[in-house]
């Protein structure tokens, strides 16, 4: 349990750090903090109002209080889901983010699952016989894929789609039955790119495990190589692999923002882009907070899975490490 508590504290700290960063950006930037609270459009609207009204707004956002008090209010508001009001959209930030996050996760979660399975299995097979045919073919291929930026990969696909004319050039499906067709390309890019990374992680983890003494013990029992690989070796390589997969989730999140732009997918990526263009600060920082929170949550989840997979962590005893 000690491990779990430490991990939990870490995630809470990370969340606090994100909130603090947000707060700092709003209040420490030169100029009126109200610009960053209301967004450029909101601020512009406000400046046309009589001064008494402006003062009232300052009161509502407690800008005359001490910074510490403001910070605490900022945290408590964020934790209650109050991320501010977007004047550009005329709605609460959380309500704008909610459906868009759904679209992003629709792309992201299947990609994470598929790439984890594919990368894990292929990596384990290649790691089980280094310099075997699988290793020889897959390693250069995935190295190549991994080295090309995700959105460049997306552009290549888009160019291909443009000439082949089989898949839609991005955008959102008008009917639900078309969903798979529209998801194909952005998801393909995400899956390919992160499979490449996870393949290499799994391969190296398996190669490290293969020289452990228990592999010899398993072989001395006459088990088949493939059984040893998947029951004994992968079971040991899995916990660190899961941690890396979770770490990569944040990277994939960022990557998906850019890939969404390539394929005009109406998720968080396009939302943030529009928010930045229209200087809608509450929406920018709200989106950032939600993204960070989901990444932190994914890591916390991975820690729990890690604990389930590794009995040494489960019982809080890592004497064998």
């Amino acid at each position: 349990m000690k491990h779990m508590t430490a991990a939990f504290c870490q995630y809470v700290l990370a969340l606090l750090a994100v909130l603090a960063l947000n707060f700092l950006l709003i209040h420490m930037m030169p100029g009126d903090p109200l610009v960053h609270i209301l967004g450029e459009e909101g601020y512009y609207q406000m400046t046309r109002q009589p001064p008494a009204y402006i003062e009232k707004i300052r009161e509502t956002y407690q800008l005359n209080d001490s910074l510490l008090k403001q910070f605490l209010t900022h945290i408590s508001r964020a934790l209650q889901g109050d991320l501010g009001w977007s004047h550009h959209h005329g709605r609460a930030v959380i309500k704008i983010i909610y459906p868009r996050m759904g679209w992003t996760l629709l792309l992201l979660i299947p990609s994470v699952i598929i790439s984890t399975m594919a990368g894990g299995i292929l990596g384990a097979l290649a790691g089980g016989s280094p310099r075997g045919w699988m290793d020889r073919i897959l390693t250069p291929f995935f190295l190549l894929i991994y080295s090309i930026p995700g959105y460049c990969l997306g552009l290549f696909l888009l160019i291909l789609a443009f000439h082949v004319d089989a898949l839609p050039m991005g955008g959102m499906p008008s009917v639900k039955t078309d969903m798979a067709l529209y998801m194909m390309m952005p998801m393909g890019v995400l899956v390919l790119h992160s499979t490449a990374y996870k393949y290499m992680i799994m391969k190296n983890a398996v190669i490290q495990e293969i020289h452990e003494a228990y592999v010899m013990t398993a072989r001395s029992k006459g088990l088949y190589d493939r059984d040893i690989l998947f029951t004994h070796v992968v079971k040991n390589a899995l916990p660190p692999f899961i941690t890396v997969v979770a770490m990569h989730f944040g990277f994939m999140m960022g990557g998906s923002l850019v890939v969404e732009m390539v394929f005009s997918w109406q998720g968080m990526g396009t939302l943030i882009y529009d928010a930045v263009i229209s200087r809608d600060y509450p929406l920018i920082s709200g989106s950032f907070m939600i993204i960070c929170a989901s990444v932190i949550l994914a890591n916390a989840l991975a820690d729990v899975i890690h604990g389930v997979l590794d009995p040494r962590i489960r019982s809080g005893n890592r004497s064998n490490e």
Partner: protein
Amino acid sequence: MAFLTPASVLETGPMNKHSRNWKEGALILMAAALPGVSILFFKNMDIANALFSPWLPPGDGHLLGTNDVGQDIFFQLISAGGRSLMVGMAAALTATLVGTLTGCVAGYYRGIADRVIMGLADIFLLIPDIPLVIVLVSFFEPGLFNVIIVIAMTSWPGTARVVRSRMLKIKEYPFVLNARSLGAGDGHIIFKHILPHTGELILAKATLAVASAMLTETGISFLGLGDPCQVTWGSMLHGVFAGAGLINGYWWWYLPPVLCISVTVMGFNLAGFYLQKGWGGNFPADSPLNRQGQIPGKTHPEVPALTGINPPVLINNKDTQTLAPEPDTLNPISKPHNQAPDTQPPSFPLDRQIFRILNLGVEFGIECETNQKKTIKALDGVNLSLVKGDRMAIIGESGSGKSILFLAMLGLLPYNARMSGEVFFRGKRMASFSRKHYQHIRAWDIAYVPQGAGNALNPVIKVGHQISERMRIHGSISKKKGMVMAARLLGQTGITNSHQRVHYYPHQFSGGMNQRVLLAMALAGENSVLLADEPTKGLDDKTKEDVLNIFLKLNREAVAVVTHDLWFARQFAKTIVVMYKGIILEQAPADSFFTAPYHPYSKALLNALPSQGILNPVIMSSHNRYAETDPGDKHGGDSYRIDGGDDDDDDRSNKKNKEISRGCPWARECEEFHDRCRHMPRLFSHNIHKVRCWCHAAGN
């Protein structure tokens, strides 16, 4: 909190390999960076901003055509490339400096600084970098400088983690401890002693950081969030997107930046990977899972054949006796009439022989710090038969090659071992077995008790499952039934409450209990031959007796045990084999051996038993006779004999060393040392004893 950063997973392998990668990787890095550096010279060309007609395809005057406002794409590409590279390198440099510094402080001083820095690094690693960069860039003024700072902020933790973990490793090296004991200051130790050993790692991380910084920068500019006044590859792509270049099919507009970004990022990534671990990685060419049965003499042609400088004393095999030089010139004692063939004619009918080992040699090729290949001999000219009904104990000190012998019999030698000689199992040549055949005999015929040290048991699988695995191969038994049978076996080895304890994991057991789990594992399936490696190691006297009783009650065709434990050997064995430095010194029936051993080494062993009261005076007053007769012997003191080609400078002394190192291995400690002992004696048959000592040559 054990976060595995990507790099710490990718970074593996021994230190010495890095020195090689260092030079080659630096070359590749320079090749990757050279175009970029040359681009820097013309980054402020006016021609990049001159306007021509829009959307001109490649051709006259414009190498790559023009874009929507009529700028020449080729010149744009060059000036943008310089900027992209500059941003990437500047960000990577900053991140590497910060990361190295913080990593050094955290790894060297530990304590509070370590906790704070690593805590911060973990938090930064949790925050996804592209969203963070977007937010920061949108709050700050857009500009390349801000982009550099922000990218550096998000990428230092990776470097810090790697540098820290390397620091922790190097800190414990003898030369650092030496420097500290000489009173060197912390700064001196860090910068003069530790950082030089981290250089190639930092360079690798920096190279990868350039790639990821360029990736982030082009991503941001592609989104149109970069500096609007400064063209980079990313913002060129943004222009294509904004100007609908893709849909109109202006391929000369979008293809060049896409290719440039991909190739450059790939170049830096590949250079970084290479710096980290070489192209194929530091991993051995062959993994245990991949290895077929060893083919003697064929597998490793680069190894010099066992015919060294002094063949007749190296190989005691009648096959090679034709290679022997004239006896008079080299070895006056080993006259032909004296050469009893070492390989005895089968003393039992062939069908009773389970194992027949002929002239088995096992060598390990290792690479030492100086990158020179050395060979360690673990077994040399071993001849042994294991017959039906035999209970054999192989005794000797650590490092005498006993365990390797078992591994060779199981076909489980490590990947870097080279085997010579033959092993026959039930009359069949094991070298000819297929992998499947090996698996079959390990599953059905030979059971093996590995040594309990390290994780011989899989740490994440319940012991019950590990015990019952072989029974589940034998017949399709359910997991549940397997557990019940495992509990019974575990109970037999003296573990109480075994029905609950089969559900435990190895870390919940003590070392001695794990040892008994390993024994239960070997007993499962009732294989006809049992090979046990130190089954009593780490057990107290009571449990030792339990284990002995199990062994005595075993109804197996043959049992062989490797042990340090002379008490156990005496109680259990019918045949005793004494090994020393990979060579069999004596083989005898247990009764006769324990009453009257022949070999001086065996005598010393028995004298060292606590029950004999006092230590052997010979061992206590051991002095180096070779030191008197030949001061040039450097290798003799090693527990393994190392035959390497390292001291080429003095060929003669080298030759002499080899000659002496191939004499009787016990000679330097022996009471009855004689000049003949400079040469390896044969295994002389002496009634029921077989002994490798010149003292007993006459009796042959």
